[in-house]
């Protein structure tokens, strides 16, 4: 894909985040979409492309009153929105549509109008994972952690530091759900969920949503806000069954998606000013740093424990507070994208000074899928 040919010209989250008991899931989509359309200074009738996940594009298009000429219902978990950005950029380049709206919302906490998730007993997951007591992401996502720790000599304290660093970023963010400072000791003494992970190493459960609007870069300069250009993109999938990953020492989906985006962007790791790595659970930033090639996996734990990703560190990571402390409605990728856009616009609550390149890396399912977007504010 051509560098900087497409830009984000509208970006917004739902008006409220956290617990939103007065809004159904589809209305959360609409709330985010209307906020993003206002942010871009557009009318609904300007939108000719629509992408969403979990909810279908027809559901959202009809509810908003949009008649699209391009739709994308890619739904591969929390990184679906990274894939939507990639697909939308390609579609705009190909002339299939001009202005794409990407929406996410989930009534993850209040569960109003939320579609049921179920695993049929004759699916592969239903036959070869469900009978052994997996029950929701906390019982599945951390399954690789002990192997990863043993292979690379990572300690419990180092992984606990992920939660501490993210909380430090959250403290700077008025919209973050959890702001009170925590220590490594607090993390390691918090309630056990699925050993080795405790509650402070698991993401929040909240309500909310977000939306993005993309258009071609040559039109982007006419919009009210600073355009944020798509410099590089990547995507991949591996397996819906965490037990069937090729290895627990790495994520194959990460290793395809991340480097693809870096190559497309033509950037080196030292060029990255700001980084988002979807942190549904505390081990994901370690996998991400290693698989995206920032450092060998052996060094990821020490790198975070040494404070390199916390405020003032040399690689600002998850500057909104992440899924661990900012918010997590179920598919957090949209919120990671929103923070990258804020950082590139220069309006983030914890703004990284002079940041010019932001890498936003998402996961879907339990390492089942991945999407990576490299943003820049320089054309």
């Amino acid at each position, binding site marked *: 894909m051509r560098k900087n040919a497409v830009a984000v010209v509208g970006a917004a989250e739902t008006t409220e985040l956290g617990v939103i008991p007065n809004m159904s899931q589809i209305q959360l989509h609409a709330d985010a979409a209307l906020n993003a359309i206002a942010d871009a200074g557009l009318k609904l009738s300007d939108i000719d492309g629509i992408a969403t996940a979990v909810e279908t594009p027809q559901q959202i298009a009809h509810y908003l009153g949009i008649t699209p000429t391009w739709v994308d219902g890619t739904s591969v978990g929390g990184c679906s929105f990274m894939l939507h950005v990639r697909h939308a950029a390609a579609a705009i380049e190909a002339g299939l549509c001009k202005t794409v709206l990407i929406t996410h919302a989930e009534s993850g906490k209040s569960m109003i109008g939320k579609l049921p998730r179920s695993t049929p007993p004759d699916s592969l997951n239903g*036959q070869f994972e469900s009978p052994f007591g997996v*029950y929701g992401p906390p*019982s599945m996502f951390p399954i690789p*952690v*002990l*192997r990863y720790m043993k292979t690379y000599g990572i300690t419990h304290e180092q992984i606990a530091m992920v939660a501490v660093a993210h909380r430090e970023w959250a403290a700077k963010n008025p919209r973050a759900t959890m702001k009170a400072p925590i220590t490594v000791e607090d993390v390691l003494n918090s309630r056990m969920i699925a050993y080795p*992970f405790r509650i402070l190493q698991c993401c929040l459960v909240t309500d909310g949503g977000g939306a993005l609007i993309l258009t071609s870069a040559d039109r982007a300069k006419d919009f009210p806000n600073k355009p944020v250009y798509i410099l590089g993109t990547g995507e991949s999938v591996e397996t819906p069954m965490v037990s069937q990953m090729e290895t627990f020492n790495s994520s194959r989906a990460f290793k395809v998606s991340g480097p693809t985006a870096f190559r497309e962007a033509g950037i080196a790791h030292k060029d990255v000013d700001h980084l988002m790595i979807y942190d549904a659970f505390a081990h994901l930033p370690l996998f991400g740093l290693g698989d995206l090639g920032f450092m060998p996996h052996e060094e990821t734990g020490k790198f975070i424990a040494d404070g390199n990703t916390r405020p003032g560190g040399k690689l600002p990571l998850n500057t909104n507070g992440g899924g661990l402390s900012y918010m997590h409605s179920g598919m957090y990728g949209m919120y990671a994208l929103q923070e990258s856009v804020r950082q590139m616009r220069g309006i983030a609550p914890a703004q990284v000074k002079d940041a010019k390149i932001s890498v936003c890396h998402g996961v879907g399912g339990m390492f089942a899928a991945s999407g990576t977007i490299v943003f820049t504010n320089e054309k």
Partner: protein
Amino acid sequence: MAEPARAKPKPTPETQHFWDGTQAGELRLQRCDACANVYFPPRPFCPSCASRKVSVFKASGKGTLYSYVINHRPAAPGFTPPYAIAVVELDEGPRMMSNIIDCPQTPEALELDMKLEVAFEKLDDKITLPLFRPAKG
């Protein structure tokens, strides 16, 4: 009222041989006749070379503990926490999810790479699950 039961697998045409195997006290895997790849979960072709010529064989039932969590909450129906959800690396190569029985469900007792052997737990007349226990000797 009966206690809620654990999730029960429902075999498909492609997986029936596996579940017939556990009922007969065998852990059955598949091997590609063309490239010798051993794979899991079951399917009637080789995911490595796409050959449809594959054979079912009885695996040794031996393996090692690759990784696990000890789930505390929320517990799945039919399980009393804390209980370990493990991934076993079979001696033949493939990995599968299972539970570890006859072993305390603690980090001290559950050592990565410990040797395991299959044990079969009958759920009903149709389904027997492959579980694993620490290998003897």
